[in-house]
Structure formats: C-alpha cells, structure tokens
C-alpha cells in the first residue's frame, strides 16, 4: 500500500509548527480568509455536509448534518463547545494536534463557528494535557493579536471569542452533555435527550459540540473542497441510502505491543493488520498478536483472525465490536491474559461511571467486584454468565442508560468473554478448583476500595 501523504499531520515535524508564523508559512488561515470573503455561513455548512465528514470523537455522527439541527432563526447566543477531553484509553491524536498544530485546530473552530453563527466557543480541555493548554493559549493569544479572533474578524461582521476551560480528570466530561454540565459548573451527569444540544445545550442555548480532529478536518475541507475529502476513504454503500460512508483521512493511534507506537494518518478503511504491520512496525518482540482493541477500549476486541477488519465506521461492527470509536488501536500479544485485560477495563469503567443511572452505576461496580474476585482465585463459572448478562443489559443500545459510557463498559465484557471463553473458564477452574462450580451467591472479596 503506498504511504499516505499526511494532510492533518503535514506540519508536524517542523520546529515552528505550533506558531502562527509557522502555520501561515504553509498556507494557514487561507481557508478562513476564503470563508469570510467568499462564503456565507450556510455555504460552509453545505461544503461540510457534502463532504460527509463524520465526527471523529467516537460517535461518528455526520458533522454537517449535526450543524443543521440548530434552529434556523434563533436570536442567539449560539455556542460551540470543542471537545478536547480526549480520555478514551488508547487515544492521543487530539493531543498531538493541539500540541503540534494548534492553529489548524483553531482555524477549524473559527470556521465552524462562522458556519453555525456561534459567537463564543469553549475548548473543554482535559486536565492531563498541560502542554496542549500552553500551546493552545499561546496560539489563541497570537490569533487575538492578529485579528483572527475578537470583534470583527478580518474586517468582517463576524466576531468570536474562544476560551479554554480546563477539566479535572473525569472521563465522562467527554460525553457531549456531560461536557456541557461540567462547563456549566455542575457535576458532569449527562442529560437525558431530548432535548438535544442543538436545541437546548449549554446555558440552555443552542449548542454544537465537536471533536478536535473533526474541526481540523473542517479546515482542510474548506481549503481543499468536499470532493477532495470524498476522494479519500471508503465510499458509502450504494445499496444503503442511509450509509454516509467513511470519508477522509483519519488519525489512527497505535499503541500496546507494537514496535512503533504512534499516531499515523491514513485514509479511513485501512485494516487493523495494515496499521500494525505497515505503520507500526509489527507486533513487538517477534510475537504474534492475540487480540486488538479497534477504536479505544470501549469498542471491545478483535481476535487475531479478525485483524483484517477494515477500520472504517462500518467495519468493526461487523465482527461484534461496538464501532470505530476513536480509531485507537491497542495491540495485545499472545502473552496477555484476557482476565487481566478485562479486569483493567472493568476497573476503568467503574472508576469513571458518573453514577447517575442505576444500571451503569451498579453494573460497572458489580463487574469489577467479580473480576477482582476472579483474579483473587475465587471466581466461578457463574460469574461469566452474570458478566454477560450485565454486558447485554446496560447501555443506550438496549435503552437502559442515559449515555453510552455503559455501552463502552459492556462491550469489552461481551467481546472478551464471548471471543475468549475457553481462556476465562480455564483460568477460573485452575485458580479456584474447589469453588468454580458454585452457583449461589458467595461472600464478597473485601479489598481496600479507592475512589
């Protein structure tokens, strides 16, 4: 496969890529000038809509379509929230964009706000990215000084303020309405929908929430056009009018048991195996892959036999994963215990569950309790049944929870146990020969709980 010429990562590697001068030297803010002088806001919405750009934050919702949900003649204010809370385990592409090419992101924000008539944008930035905070703030300062932000941008009628808002280490703030609640100063409990943010979002006003990589794509789409964007990736299925396709370049994150972990830009649709072998230098230590997470831990697991799955929006779902998610691939080699993997996943979701709705709050805690007990040598085969029942019952897909964190908690459970059942059973029988067949409730493992 011929190497893909990076677009989103094109400037990374230049020493001054994060400065305004460096950005403008390679054509930066040309798209903004074009939009403000030649395009109306609705034209920007149209080009993004025609490009079929789908959100890069994990849900893959068509961006242009989302923008059209805003009420047409709303007196305002309309808000834009940029989701820089990137917390999905395995994911780090937003970090790289913000640290190394913040202006590409900011130009995308300004274009998106121009399109949606937002006059204030908040970048909700996770606490753990201090370098991104520094680089973004510097870039914003440069923009204000240059007149790319503030009142009457480039002499137009369009005014925009962008503010950085720092999080405090909670994964659920990456959920659209969890972010909104956190921004409003409350606990980040996601809201019930309807109403959707486009109708009633932050401060009860129409709001669009977009991911960092998504807005970077907006910059490139305005620069190069919708047709350019659609020349990359996987076209929509002609037999399915509802399929928006998987267009454009994608920043794939690769980590875990590979020789060259890193962020690699490729057209949407490369397979997991291609990513590992052609970009990642192959599985490390001359080992074989046992499994791979396809798109952040919430998406579940691919077995080694499933590594030829294309990593586009439709691919992982066909082999029982939740979806493409953040396209963050994490490779597990043949020495990894799936029990350890699942324990790590359950521990993560128990820690991050916001606690608002019963199935997720109690289901994630119950799952971890069982994994703790299994790892302590007191597991039962019955536990696998209960784990699968939890996995099948919690989430927005069955309709039992308010947000998708529960689905993210459920999928690793379902995939790990269903795709590696024999390993779980062997582990339980081996470590708890006297008690693995017990079906009645057993005493809890008492461990020092930590928040």
């Amino acid at each position: 496969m011929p190497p893909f010429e990076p677009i989103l990562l094109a400037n990374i590697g230049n020493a001054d890529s994060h400065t305004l001068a460096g950005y403008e030297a390679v054509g930066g803010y040309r798209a903004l000038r074009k939009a403000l002088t030649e395009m109306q806001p609705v034209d920007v919405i149209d080009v993004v809509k025609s490009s079929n750009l789908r959100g890069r934050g994990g849900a893959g919702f068509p961006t242009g379509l989302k923008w059209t949900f805003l009420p047409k003649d709303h007196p305002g204010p309309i808000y834009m929230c940029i989701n820089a809370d990137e917390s999905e385990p395995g994911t780090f592409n937003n970090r790289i964009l913000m640290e190394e090419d913040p202006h590409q992101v900011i130009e995308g924000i300004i274009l998106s706000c121009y399109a949606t008539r937002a006059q204030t944008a908040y970048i909700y930035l996770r606490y753990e990215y201090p370098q991104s905070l520094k680089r973004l703030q510097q870039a914003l300062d440069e923009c204000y000084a240059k007149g790319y932000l503030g009142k009457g941008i480039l002499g137009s009628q369009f005014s925009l303020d962008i503010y950085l808002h720092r999080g405090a280490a909670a994964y659920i703030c990456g959920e659209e309405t969890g972010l909104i609640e956190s921004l409003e100063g409350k606990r980040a409990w996601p809201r019930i929908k309807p109403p959707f943010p486009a109708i009633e979002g932050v401060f009860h006003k129409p709001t669009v929430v977009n991911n960092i990589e998504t807005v970077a794509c907006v910059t490139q789409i305005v620069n190069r056009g919708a047709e350019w964007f659609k020349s990359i990736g996987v076209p929509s299925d002609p037999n399915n009018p509802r399929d928006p396709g998987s267009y454009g370049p994608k920043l794939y994150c690769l980590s875990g048991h590979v020789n060259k972990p890193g962020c690699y830009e490729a057209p949407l649709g490369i397979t997991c195996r291609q990513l590992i072998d052609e970009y990642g230098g192959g599985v490390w230590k001359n080992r074989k892959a046992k499994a791979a997470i396809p798109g952040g831990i919430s998406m579940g697991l691919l077995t080694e036999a499933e590594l030829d799955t294309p990593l586009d929006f439709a691919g992982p779902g066909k082999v029982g994963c939740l979806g493409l998610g953040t396209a963050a691939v994490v490779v597990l080699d043949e020495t990894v215990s799936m029990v350890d993997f699942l324990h790590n996943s359950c521990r993560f979701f128990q820690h991050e569950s916001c606690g608002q709705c019963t199935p997720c709050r109690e289901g994630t805690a119950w799952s971890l309790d069982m994994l703790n007990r299994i790892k302590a040598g007191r597991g039962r085969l019955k536990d696998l049944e209960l784990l699968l029942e939890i996995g099948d019952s919690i989430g927005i897909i069955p309709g039992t929870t308010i947000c998708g964190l529960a689905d993210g908690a459920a999928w690793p459970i379902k995939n790990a146990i269903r795709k590696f059942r024999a390993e779980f059973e062997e582990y339980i029988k081996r470590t708890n020969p006297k008690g693995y067949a017990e079906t009645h409730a057993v005493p809890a493992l008492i461990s020092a709980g930590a928040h």
Partner: protein
Amino acid sequence: MAVVLIDNREVEIGDSERLNGIQAAERAGVEIPHYCWHAGLSVVASCRMCLVENGQKNKETGQVVMQPKLVPACQTPAKDGAVFITDSDKVRQARAQVEEALLIDHPVDCPICDKAGECRLQDYHFEHGQKERRADIRPFTSRKREMGETVTLFVDRCVMCTRCVRFCREISGSAELMVINRGSHEEIDVLEGFPLDNKLAGNVVDLCPVGALGDRDFLYQQRVWFLKRHASVCSGCSTGCSIWGEENQDRLWRLKPRENPHVNQWWMCDEGRYGFHHVHSDDRQVGPRKRDADGVMANVDWAALPDDLSARLKKAGQLAAVLSPHLTVEEAYMLAHYIRGLDPQAVIALGPVPIEGEDERFPNGFTIRAEKCPNRRGVEEVVRFFGGIMSFTEFLGELDKAQIRGVWVSGGYKTDWLDASQANRFASLEVLVVQDMFVSPLWELATYQLPGGSFAERDGSYVNHADRLQRVSWIIRPPSGAWVEGALFWRLQNRPGLYDSRRILAEVAAEIPYYSVAWGEIPETGVDLKLNQLAAAR
C-alpha cells in the same frame, strides 16, 4: 383529545393535558414502578425503573411500530397514538435488573427501618424483583448521618434517586443537600456548617422512596402498618395545606401532606408538619370546672353542664360570643346561633387572629402565611353574617361599655393567645365561659372552664386565605374529659343523635350566601367559594 394505548387499554388524554407514560398508565389502572420521577420535580430519568416499550400506532392503518429500545416512561410524552407496553418479558427483565442493582449495596435492614411497610424498594422487590440474590454477599453497613435538626440520613439505604437534592434546589431554593463523590461511591450529604434547615425540609422525607431519609420527630415511634390516616387540613396558617393525620389508637403520630393542586401541591411546611405535639401535651385541660358561689373552681360533670350553661347564660342579660379562627365553619355557625338563641341581641365577634412575621413565598409559589390559624376567612364570614365583622380589639372596646354581661369565648389556640391586660377586660362579667385546651389568663378568670378540642379532633370545614373550603375529618378522639366544640354545640342546640358536620354545612350553605356552593358533596381538594360570585353574577 389524544388516545394512548397502555397494554392495549385505551386512555384518553385531554388536549391541554401534558402527561407522561407513568401518568397515562395510572389512568389505565396500571402502575409503572418508579423512584426518581415526581410530578413536582424536574425529570431526570435516572433510576431507570420505569423503563417500558414504546411505539406509535398509525391512526389510518392501525399498524403499530414499536421502538427497539426501552424508554423511561417518565420522560416519554403520552401523545396521540402513543403505545406503551408495560408487561412484556423485556420490560419485566429490565425492572428486575434495576431492582437487583439497587439491592447490591443495600443493607436490607427492614427490621430496624422506619420505612418498612411504605417502602418502594420492598414493594417493588416483592412485585418485580429477582427471586434470589446473585451479587456477592457483603458485610453489613448501615451508617446514620444527621442532615439537620429534623432530618436524618441512613446513608447506605439511599438509591440515588436525587429527589431530595432536587427538592432543595427547585422547591425550597436552599440547596443544602448535595451528592458527593462519583459512581458507586456516591452519597447524599450536607456541607459541614450548612445543615438542612429550610422551612420545607420535612418534605424530603416524604419524597424519599426508601428508608434513607427519616423524620427525627417520628423515628422509631410507630410501625406504619398500625397507622390509620384521615384526610384533614393543617391548622398552622391560612394557606390550609391538605394533610393526612396518621394515628393509632387515638394517638396522633405524624402529619403528612395530602396532594392538592389548588392549595399545596405535594408539600407542607415544617411548622405545620411537626406542630401537633400540643395535642398530646400533659398541659391539656381535661374535666370541666365551674366557679361556685364563693368563687372557688370545682370540678363538675359534663352531663348536667349543657342545661346549666344555657340557664345561666339566659339569666345573665346581654350576651356575646367570641369566635376563634380555630373553630370550624360549622362550629362557628352553631355557636353563633346558640348564643343568639339565648339573646337575640347578642354580640358576635371574631377572636384574636394570630399574625407572626410576613408571608414567606418559595420559588415554586408555595407560601407559608403570616396568619397562623386555619379558618379566619370562614369564621369571619359567619361573624359578618351575624351582624358585621367585629375584630377582637373592637370587641374589647364593647366590653368596656359594661353592657355585656355574659360572654362565651372559644379558644383552641396552640400557644398563648392573649395577655393578662386583655383578659382583665373580661373581669367584671356576670358569666364568662372559656372553652379552650390550655390554661391562659382568661381561663383563670372563667366562670366555666370547658376543655375543648384540638384541630386533630375536629370534624368540619375550614376556609383558607383564597376562599377555598376544605373538609377536615376528625383524626383522634379527644382526651377523656374534653368535649370537642362541634359535638358540644350540637348538644347545646339539642340536636338529636351524634354530631354530623355535613348536616351543619348544608344549613350554612342554605343560610349564608358566601357559603352557597358548599351545599353538596365537597371534593377531597375542597371547593372554591368564590364560585358563588359567578353564580350570583349569572
């Protein structure tokens, strides 16, 4: 008119009604279990107990299309053509799973929990829950934490429905209760130094669907299955909140608000809620007493007293009656008629109207009123009918003219209601009848001391600040030796049989125009007497 299907039963929803699935189902006689939803609070749909299947029926084709996923009934509008399925296997399983989830960390200490018998966790487990425990068995913890002076929290019983937190933010506006921590470690708490102390605090105990929040006033006092409840009205102020009085064997144990969309919605204030202990005070006067010829008070028998009173009053000369705003409408009417019967020129006056501070209005409109009695409006209209409104102060002026020789004063106040200087203006009467619960400066001067009833013993009607008449049923019998006003006046008027306040109200409605709409069956939520003006205007 919208038509909604609940498990294939049709329910009609009016055009101006905005109901959710739970409310529509209720109309069909189906109970959709729920914890976090409450009609008076915001919708959060977080407990997930009310999950149902939802779909839409096409009016033309009759075809029903169901959504593949479950939805919370509390956040699903019951609009025209909506289909709700509440009893499928899918729904039953989801409910059982939620119920099971809530019990994982729950101490299940029903034997020592006040809520047993009126607990949703118990009821739903019995009706909808799993057959046996599948989660690990945990060691017992049931921590107790004081939220304030009136409310206690049993932390581990909480199911995180957040009704209490939302109440403090949305209704009382005081926001003392909060959620702390995240995920399965979440608890309800108050910030140290800022306890729960707003005037509506007790409502959070009503709202709590489980035994987490408890009333310190009621804690460990009675098992709720021994309590019988009776519909009444709070006597604390002129708002006239509808209440339930809950008693066992003539002991009043607690008051709870009764839902009334016209008056108090679902709420009552703490002063009313906890303001009933005077009913069982050791200071309640029991056993009538009469001053003999030497001026010494002696115990007398109730049996002979009515005839003695009538004879003594008739002989006295000009009479007067002071009608307390704690009397029911029926009692005020009977007393006035009785005194006028003895003396057609008798003066009828209103008793002191206790005012404390100012009206206090809460964000949702609920108001605690400064007028601290339940029936000033009602008694006032009786007084007006019998010759024009005369206030207590005006009456004292009348007394000073020294023409009135015999006065019947009804009291029934909870606390001190007049001082010695006011009492002394009654000092030179020929006959002074004081009917009251507690000793007062006036009681000490009485010729006849008649122990009367409290609000909990009265049967009749009150009229609140907004001219709404509501019926109160008697909750308990008076202490032995007290004769409740209504029953005594019935006897004084020589009416046959037992006291029947409905008969009196019908007479009031027939005789006093203000009360004309109160002649028939009075609804549980009362009747707006201003309707008589509409009738008069026609």
